[in-house]
């Protein structure tokens, strides 16, 4: 090898090594960071999914518990009997419900989720004294969407 040609390649392995090391480690890091971020995002969404089902489960369980207790307590009433007194007692026992006549709404909140169950109690006693009208799930993300549907930044 001539002196001139040796001088020209001297340092080349180092430069190539630095370039290869930087690019390979860069791609590897990006790939790992991306995979971790994807996994983290999925786990976060699964936590939210668990929360929504938990809220609905709790609300329905409470509705069932309350209505079932009524059915047991007033089960002795004859079919077709005007159960106004019993209804008034039921209303007094559950001030946490939102009442409108014989219709009521109960809400259960778990984390950011709120479940509202609307139901009605029949004026005349029957085999089934309650009718489930609706069950809605809403999420509060502490954002204001009142203007054009776009979230408004409220400041720190």
């Amino acid at each position, binding site marked *: 090898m001539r002196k001139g040609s040796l001088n020209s390649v001297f340092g080349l*392995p180092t430069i190539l090594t630095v370039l290869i090391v930087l690019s390979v480690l860069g791609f*590897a890091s990006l*790939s790992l960071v991306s995979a971790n971020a994807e*996994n983290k995002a999925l786990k976060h969404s*699964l936590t939210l999914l668990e929360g929504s089902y938990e809220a609905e489960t709790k609300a329905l369980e409470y509705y*069932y518990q309350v209505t079932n207790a009524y059915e047991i307590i007033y089960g002795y009433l004859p079919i077709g009997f005007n159960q106004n007194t019993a209804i008034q007692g039921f209303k007094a026992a559950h001030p946490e419900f939102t009442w409108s006549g014989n219709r009521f709404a109960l809400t259960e909140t778990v984390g950011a989720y709120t479940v509202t169950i609307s139901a009605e109690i029949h004026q005349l006693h029957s085999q089934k004294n309650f*009718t*489930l009208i609706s069950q809605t799930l809403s999420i509060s993300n502490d954002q204001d969407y009142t203007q054009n549907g776009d979230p408004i930044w409220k400041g720190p």
Partner: protein
Amino acid sequence: MKNKQIHFFLLEFTLSLIILSVTLLVALSMFTQAAKQHEETQALRKLSGEMAMTAETLRNPMNEWPYQNERKTVSTFYDVKGEVTTGVVVYILTIDYDARDTLRKATLTLRDMSKKALLTIQVNALTEVPE
């Protein structure tokens, strides 16, 4: 002088090769880890989707549950890709049905082999259909 230059060049070349080898090994390990993580995410996404579909089916009061008036626990085993398997098990999906009451309850739990719960969905349904 010339020999010294060749010696230094060979030394530089050898050191570069060593550093490259180490780097490639580290990078390979990182790529492998990323691929494993990605595969786990894909399997989890697939299984959680299936669980959510099952939960919605059970939640619908119009649908019949597979078990009536009894409590039953069913386990299904999945491989690393989230496919049902009878071989190497990586994920276990357990569905605990409790249909003994008017308010039917089910708990769907996805666990890995270390018994760590990855996803738990509780569902209940009244036999009553909302008006």
